[in-house]
């Protein structure tokens, strides 16, 4: 057998075939090395990135909102350090014991405890649960004292929105609160920067300027394991605070407006007649926006919601009122411009006017006798304006009124709750009500009643444009990057051209055909406030520094029946809901005017008694602050 043929042949076969296998092995190993080379050398970068993507996770922290400041740089929407309490479940030894301890220390409600337990079951054990969003300092201290006994509890300091002036700016600024799903989906910036606990603007400028105010997230990079647990922190990238925004408003005046309208429903707007800067814009009553930051309680919410004076409505922008007699300057101007009347034109007021069997009453039952434009405006004679409106016609009146900003939004798209109001004409009635215009409707439009509806801010702008000599202003509440100074605005206006900072063009903003007519109306308004028998004569200021011109208005909220007219009830005898709205528009100082305002006191009775006295108190303050304001005009440039 040894070295037999068969054995040798077999050995040969085995060796030969082994050689083939050996060659195959080399090929395969080379293949594997090639694969290793391709993964580790050629595609190394790609896989390194993927590996980093695996192990590094970013945690976004809520961004810090930009401050909003008033014209003088006072922070009116800022940020405040708040103390929060977090629990990290995986670090807690005895969860129930901890909850009992916290319940005692912080007076947590059973509902809150249940919520924490629910969160615990939903979140990963290393995700922190927010027990309290806003601890008081004493609570924070208490927790820190007992920290040794509260394993797994983490007191955290974070930043929250804060409105230092509480309710003063609510209707201008709005407020911030937790976003709902829809709000996150609608705004890409919010979607990108959203983190739980972040708050967004819900209303007002906070909402409108969200993308400027929001700021960027601070980012913390952690190394995490396959289950998402943080192993260690790699780096911290600071976020940028949102843009600072400077408003044109003056907190002192805004505050004064709030005090003047205390306990009343109404609105005050103050505007620079040349630059269009809104100095104050207050809607009363207001509410405290700080209540919404950490979720308003049901009780507080019901209190605001059910207040009969309707604090939730921004009356300055969305309150629609009949302008009443405050429209008369526009009616007079329109008639003068259309040469329907002149200063010598007179009407005899007998206390009422008959037209097609309908009686139109003047507010003064006995009548004013023969009145000219000046006297009619001064005493607010309705009969005169019935007659003027009749001669003028509603369509011509409408053209003038719309020129002066009635029936159009004043601040454009800055506030989504702004209403545009209505100034009717014959075409409007045909298109919207399907009926022909009736002459009687022209008459009542002439005294600011009927279909006509305007917002307090529209009336303010209307007055401003009369006050500045009949030039269009562009109202604004945000100081833009290139603020035009008061003098420049005035100068360019008086040269008949207005520099538009948006389009950077000089535009012809003349609203009149003959500036004399504006002067006539101004004089009539002056008389109304500063001459005997003027409707707001009692509210005048004789010092020329503060002297102002204005026009009262009393808007009926319901038709006055014959019986009521005869009764001539005192204000207190009429149910609140049926009382007239008191209005007043004014500008001052009369020589070199600077500011215009409009005041509305809902159900306040007559304009001369309820609204004009407010203007007297306000004008002193407004004009006293003028020099200060002038000095501030260019102190800071902010681009938005």
């Amino acid at each position, binding site marked *: *057998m*040894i070295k037999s043929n*068969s*054995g040798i*042949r*077999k*050995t040969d*076969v*085995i*060796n030969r*075939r*082994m050689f083939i*296998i*050996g060659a195959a*092995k080399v090929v*395969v*190993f080379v293949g*594997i*090395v090639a*694969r*290793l*080379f391709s*993964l*580790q*050398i050629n*595609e*190394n970068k*790609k*896989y*390194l990135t*993927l*590996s980093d993507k*695996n*192990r590094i996770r970013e945690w976004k922290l809520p961004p810090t909102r930009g401050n909003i400041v008033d014209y003088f740089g006072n922070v009116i929407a800022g940020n405040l350090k708040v103390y929060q309490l977090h629990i990290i479940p995986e670090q807690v030894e005895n969860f129930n014991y901890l909850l009992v301890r916290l319940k005692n220390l912080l007076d947590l409600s059973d509902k809150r405890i249940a919520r924490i337990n629910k969160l615990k079951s939903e979140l990963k054990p290393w995700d922190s649960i927010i027990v309290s969003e806003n601890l008081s300092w004493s609570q924070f201290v208490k927790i820190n004292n007992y920290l040794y006994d509260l394993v797994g509890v983490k007191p955290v300091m974070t930043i929250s929105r804060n409105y230092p002036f509480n309710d003063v700016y609510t209707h201008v600024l709005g407020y911030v609160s937790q976003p709902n799903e829809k709000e996150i989906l609608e705004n890409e910036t919010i979607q990108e920067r959203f983190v739980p606990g972040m708050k967004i603007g819900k209303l007002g400028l906070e909402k409108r300027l969200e993308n400027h105010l929001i700021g960027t997230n601070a980012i913390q990079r952690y*190394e*995490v*394991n*396959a*289950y998402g647990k943080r*192993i260690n922190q790699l780096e911290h990238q600071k976020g940028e605070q949102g843009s600072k925004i400077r408003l044109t408003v003056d907190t002192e005046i805004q505050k004064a407006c709030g005090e003047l309208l205390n306990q009343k429903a109404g609105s005050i707007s103050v505007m620079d007649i040349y630059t269009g800067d809104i100095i104050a814009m207050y809607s009363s009553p207001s509410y405290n926006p700080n209540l919404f930051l950490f979720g308003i309680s049901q009780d507080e919410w019901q209190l605001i919601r059910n207040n009969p004076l309707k604090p939730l409505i921004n009356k300055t922008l969305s309150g629609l009122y009949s302008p009443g007699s405050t429209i008369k300057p526009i009616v007079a101007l329109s008639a003068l411009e259309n040469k329907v009347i002149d200063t010598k034109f007179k009407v005899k007021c007998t206390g009422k006017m008959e037209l097609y069997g309908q009686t139109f009453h003047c507010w003064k039952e006995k009548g004013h006798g023969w009145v000219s434009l000046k006297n009619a405006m001064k005493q607010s004679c309705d009969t005169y304006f019935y007659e003027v409106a009749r001669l003028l016609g509603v369509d011509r009146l409408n053209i003038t009124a719309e020129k002066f900003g009635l029936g159009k939004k004043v601040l454009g798209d800055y506030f989504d709750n702004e209403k545009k109001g209505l100034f009717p004409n014959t075409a409007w009635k045909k298109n919207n009500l399907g009926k022909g215009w009736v002459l009687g409707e022209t008459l009542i439009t002439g005294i600011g009643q009927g279909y006509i509806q305007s917002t307090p801010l529209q009336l303010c702008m209307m007055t401003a444009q009369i006050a500045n000599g009949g030039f269009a202003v562009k109202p604004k509440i945000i100081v833009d990057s290139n603020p035009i100074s008061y003098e420049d605005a005035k100068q360019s206006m008086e040269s008949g051209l207005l520099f538009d900072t948006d389009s950077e063009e000089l535009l012809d903003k003349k609203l009149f055909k003959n500036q004399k007519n504006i002067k006539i109306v101004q004089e009539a308004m002056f008389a109304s406030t500063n001459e005997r028998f003027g409707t707001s004569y009692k509210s005048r200021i004789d010092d020329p520094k503060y002297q102002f011109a204005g026009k009262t208005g009393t808007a009926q909220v319901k038709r006055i029946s014959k019986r009521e007219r005869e009764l001539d009830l005192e204000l207190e005898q009429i149910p609140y809901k049926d009382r007239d709205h008191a209005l007043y528009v004014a500008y001052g100082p009369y020589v070199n005017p600077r500011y215009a305002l409009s005041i509305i006191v809902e159900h306040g009775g007559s304009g001369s008694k309820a609204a004009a006295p407010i203007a007297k108190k306000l004008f002193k303050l407004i004009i006293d602050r003028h020099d200060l304001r002038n000095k501030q005009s260019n102190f800071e440039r902010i681009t938005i």
Partner: protein
Amino acid sequence: MFQHDRLSNEFTLFQKIKSLDYILLISVILLSALSVFVMYSTDGGEILFHTKNHFVKLAVFFPLMIFVAFFNIKFWHNFSYIIYLIVILLLIYVSFFGIKSSGSQRWMDLYLFVLQPSELMKVAIIMCLAKYFHRIKIENVNSFTSITIVLSIIIIPIIFVISQPDLGTSILIALSGLIILWLGGMKIKYFIYSFITFLISLPFIISFLKPYQKLRILTFLDPDRDPLGAGYQIIQSKIAIGSGGLNGKGFLKGTQSYLDFLPEKHTDFIFTLFSEEFGFIGSVGLLILYSIIIFRIVRIGTISRSNFARLFCFGYAFAIFIYIVVNLSMVLGLLPIVGSPLPIMSYGGSSMLATMIGFGIVLSAKINHKQIIA
């Protein structure tokens, strides 16, 4: 040095130790040492369960290898069939009384450790077939009877292993068996025919696969179809290896591994961890170490006088090669995922036991390379 007619069982212990193959021995020691370090890394840089156990197994099985080597190759030749039969019996035992774990029944409890007989079969089938082809006349290799016998030898254990179920080990057993058939002189056309038949019947075979096995094939073809599910392992493995780069991330610094992104890092995916931490250079180094081992085994086969020793060495060298190739191809995304450990490196007692026994027999063949077996 040795006389022709001297029988190896007459060697003194000293002579036996002296004639061990030291290159192979040193390579195995190096590999073992390396495997302990890698295991230490899988434990996150601490001496924990896996490191300890792996070390203990090495400490037991390495002397066992030497012990096996000291038996004459003739002894292993004589007991080949019996060993094969014993392992078959163990497989039968396991299929009735085995321990179940994650859906398959592969293990038997030996109190000291849990044995997986299918791993032993990887070596036993080589022994059995080597003996068969050693004894059969070359003229009869392609006879109907012998083909029937050798195919039965291969198919019987595979039936048991595949029913456990354990596709990976069955494939490795089948390949280990087939290589002996090839080396033993079976006609090449048979291999070609059966390969063609295999290709044709592949769709039918696939239809018989278990759903999870089908899923593995689908995942192999497109790992991104379910990146967090079935494709997760292979994607993470490729990321780990690819991110290792030329030099690797450094010992104990494999982020994929210590942050738990790597699945099965102790066993089938041990190479992934190694490659992440030691990079391309380390991986090629490891392949070179394995190549040296394989080359040494082949070399011992070539100097062996008996065809049994020769067939066993060649067969075993090929088996080691196949284990490495299947494992590496799997973790590199070249093959679908089939459970197959990397010899010595992977955690797992039975696999290490079988590998060490195999090395032992190879060393015995070296000591007794002049031994003639009738």
